[in-house]
């Protein structure tokens, strides 16, 4: 079962090793040794991290490493397109640096560390499952040698540019992490883009003194309102996600062909140009392959195979004193660590909320809505709850704390074996939160 779960990560690992071997031609032994060592360090590091810290910190560290590698890819892709569209094509110091054995070793080691850490996160309870971790290292080692053999069979004309190599390695790492909810980058990116676009549009309209919606035609405002929706977050995320790979492909396409003006035989000129164009096309293979991998990662992130625990809200009412009383034990065990949803209705108004026992053993009562998104509610999976609207994961440890996309916490008291909530507080809190978020998402400024 574990082996099946690891298939995407292990396939990515083979791809990574292949690309590294092809990207650093002539440095096969260094790349092989460094990548295997890196993988082992990554798995061991995961084991130590999960043993030493609560779950959020190791996941945070690995996710940050993936985020930094994605930013690095962005930086390199922008530099590459600038270089290829500028005057005078020269081999920069960066390219010379890439061709050194130190760079090959360091790059393979770092890649191995991140890949190993990501793979280890896929194993259940990585802080105690030592046999599974050892098995993982063994399989990765075998696959490295398999990749070594496959690389020898690939056509020599299939060359990889340094930027193309980086694109492929980073995208394979992102693909590898996209099937692990807490390491996935695409969904959080979409959410941040949604918020960023919202802030930017709002500030822009304020900056250039655009009138408020009461003066603007509803149809125009509908278009402006579109900029505040989650679709913009998704498509904006897609643009940010794919742009580096496309920039690198474009940079290769825009590379100036060698000057043949000094050659006086037309046939020779054409032969040289044709050879240069052919090489250019072969170098496009890896960036375009990266685009496909990124698409797979985005799909995996948008439609995860995880099933969320999302119980149907149970209708509940308040007593004469306006108190909602829920027993901790009974038909439903509030302390079982699962999300328990309730629906409270009063005088035409209603509020949806849930009760949850956090991993620290504290009960928390929260609205089934956050202060940012439309109230599509939350589901529970793999040590976190997920906001269905923006797909942001909230670690269980932080549920009950206000801010961001966290569920809005509601004050409550524990009386004996029951949880007591003030119905007026609940309904008012729902009204203000939902009114505000629905207005924003429907295009209000």
């Amino acid at each position: 079962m574990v082996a099946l779960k690891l298939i995407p990560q292990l396939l990515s690992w083979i791809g990574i090793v292949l690309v590294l071997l092809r990207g650093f031609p002539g440095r096969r032994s260094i790349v092989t040794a460094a990548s295997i060592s890196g993988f082992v360090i990554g798995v061991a590091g995961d084991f130590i991290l999960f043993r030493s810290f609560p779950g959020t910190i190791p996941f945070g560290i690995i996710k940050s490493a993936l985020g930094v590698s994605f930013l690095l890819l962005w930086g390199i892709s922008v530099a590459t397109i600038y270089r290829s569209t500028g005057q005078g094509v020269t081999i920069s110091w960066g390219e010379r640096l890439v061709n050194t054995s130190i760079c090959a070793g360091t790059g393979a080691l770092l890649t191995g560390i991140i890949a190993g850490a990501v793979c280890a996160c896929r194993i259940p309870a990585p802080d105690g499952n030592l046999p599974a971790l050892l098995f993982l290292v063994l399989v990765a080692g075998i696959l490295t040698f398999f990749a070594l053999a496959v690389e020898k069979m690939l056509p020599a004309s299939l060359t990889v540019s340094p930027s193309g190599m980086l694109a492929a390695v980073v995208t394979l790492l992102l693909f590898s992490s996209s099937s692990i909810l807490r390491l996935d980058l695409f969904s959080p990116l979409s959410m941040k883009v949604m918020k960023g676009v919202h802030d930017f549009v709002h500030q822009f309209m304020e900056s250039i003194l655009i009138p408020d919606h009461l003066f603007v035609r509803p149809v125009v405002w509908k278009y402006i309102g579109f900029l505040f929706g989650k679709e913009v977050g998704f498509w904006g995320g897609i643009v940010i996600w794919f742009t580096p790979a496309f920039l690198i492909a474009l940079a290769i396409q825009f590379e100036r062909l060698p000057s043949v003006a000094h050659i006086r035989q037309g046939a020779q000129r054409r032969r040289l140009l044709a050879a240069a164009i052919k090489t250019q096309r072969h170098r496009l293979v890896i960036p375009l392959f990266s685009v496909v991998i990124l698409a797979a990662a985005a799909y995996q992130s948008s439609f995860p195979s995880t099933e969320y625990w999302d119980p149907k809200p149970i209708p509940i009412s308040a007593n004469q004193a306006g108190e909602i009383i829920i027993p901790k034990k009974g038909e439903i065990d509030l302390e079982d660590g699962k999300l328990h949803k309730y629906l409270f209705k009063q005088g035409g108004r209603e509020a949806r909320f849930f009760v949850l026992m956090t991993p620290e053993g504290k009960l928390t009562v929260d609205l089934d809505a956050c202060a940012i998104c439309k109230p599509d509610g939350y589901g529970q999976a793999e040590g976190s709850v997920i906001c269905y609207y923006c797909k942001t994961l909230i670690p269980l440890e932080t549920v009950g704390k206000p801010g961001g996309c966290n569920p809005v916490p509601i004050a409550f008291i524990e009386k004996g074996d029951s949880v007591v909530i003030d119905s007026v507080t609940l309904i008012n809190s729902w009204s203000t939160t939902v009114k505000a978020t629905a207005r924003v998402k429907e295009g209000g400024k």
Partner: protein
Amino acid sequence: MKRLLRALMTAASSRALAPLVIGFFFLLYIGIAFFTDETLITLMAFTSKSLILAALLALIPLNYAFRIVRETLRQFAMHRALTGKPADRMSELFGETVELQASPSFPELESRLTAVGYKTRCSENALTAWRGVGIFPARILFLAGTFCIFTGILISITTRTSHRQMVIEGEPLPMPEGTGGRVERITLANSSGPILSRTLTMEVAPSVSGYGKRIFGIYPPSLYGSYFVYPRYLGLALLLRFSAPDLPTGYEKQFFLNCYPPGKEASEEIPNSPYRIVFSIPEPDAGSDRYISYMTGNVTLQFKLLKGKEVLFTGAAPGGGEFVRDGYRLAFPDIRRLVVTDYIGDYGVLFIWVASLIFAASGCIWLPIRFFFPRREMLFRYEHDITRACSRAEGRARIHAGVFHEALDLVDAGKPDRQSIRL
């Protein structure tokens, strides 16, 4: 010193500078996003308060100003070269430069290039051929637009001031410093424009401080003094008379109610008493404009009187009318139109507006030229028994290169000692 200045100039006009600065701010944005949800506002606040960040941001418009100068000088040099005059660093001006040890037959070359659609200019020792239109004007407009937009952003972030005031019909126009002329009339009307559904005008009489009669609209906002008058929301200025059994002396005060659109509640406290009144405008009859009460001035105010948390009663009364019940009396002797207005001190807005116009013009010029008439140029110059040939293309480069190479073959044809040097 000269070398240092030249290095500084090169750095300041480098194509890499703006992306580097933007990249830095982007990283800063990501960093801030870890700590707060109000990322953009926080970044703007940091930039407005930090001299270093502001100076860093200022590098972008500076860079574009230098690039305008640099690209203009380059264009002059190119023009000079193409008119047959000697120019420095020819290889930097053109995409491809080659030297041939051959003496060209310019008339033959000229007829060949003319036959394939190039215009030519021939002098004693130089031949220039070109076709299409240069994108230089569009390029300069684009650079100027980028300069303006970043200058606007810089000015906005570092100097913007905002003062919210209530502009009330019949009263002097409030200003951040002193007052303006009397607001003679506020008019809200429906509009048939493609963007705005309503127009709002505020007519202001000449002021004692020297401002003439002015009429303020919605967009673009007008400048008054050194501030843009930016109407935000509609409301009412209500003169309220209130008395209650435990408040027999009564209470009179003008309230500013931000109560539009209809249904929006505006809550006001009666000072030194447990009373609070929540006002709202009722929804108009079906088929009527939601803002009909504001347009006509016939306002009926709904209210809810609260004592502490307890609702005593609800009611409604028109402007000039009153409501009496159980010893309570609410009178609305005067209701006037009000516009919640921001006075924005920010000249950066002008730069941003100008930038959008320049970008539009640049795009309109660039698109047809680049796709239908891209500029292609070549120059053949014969000096000291050497022919120097240069070529550049802003589009359709492959076809142009083919013509150029054939022209070179023609120059070189029949010479006993064929040799060409790529520069």
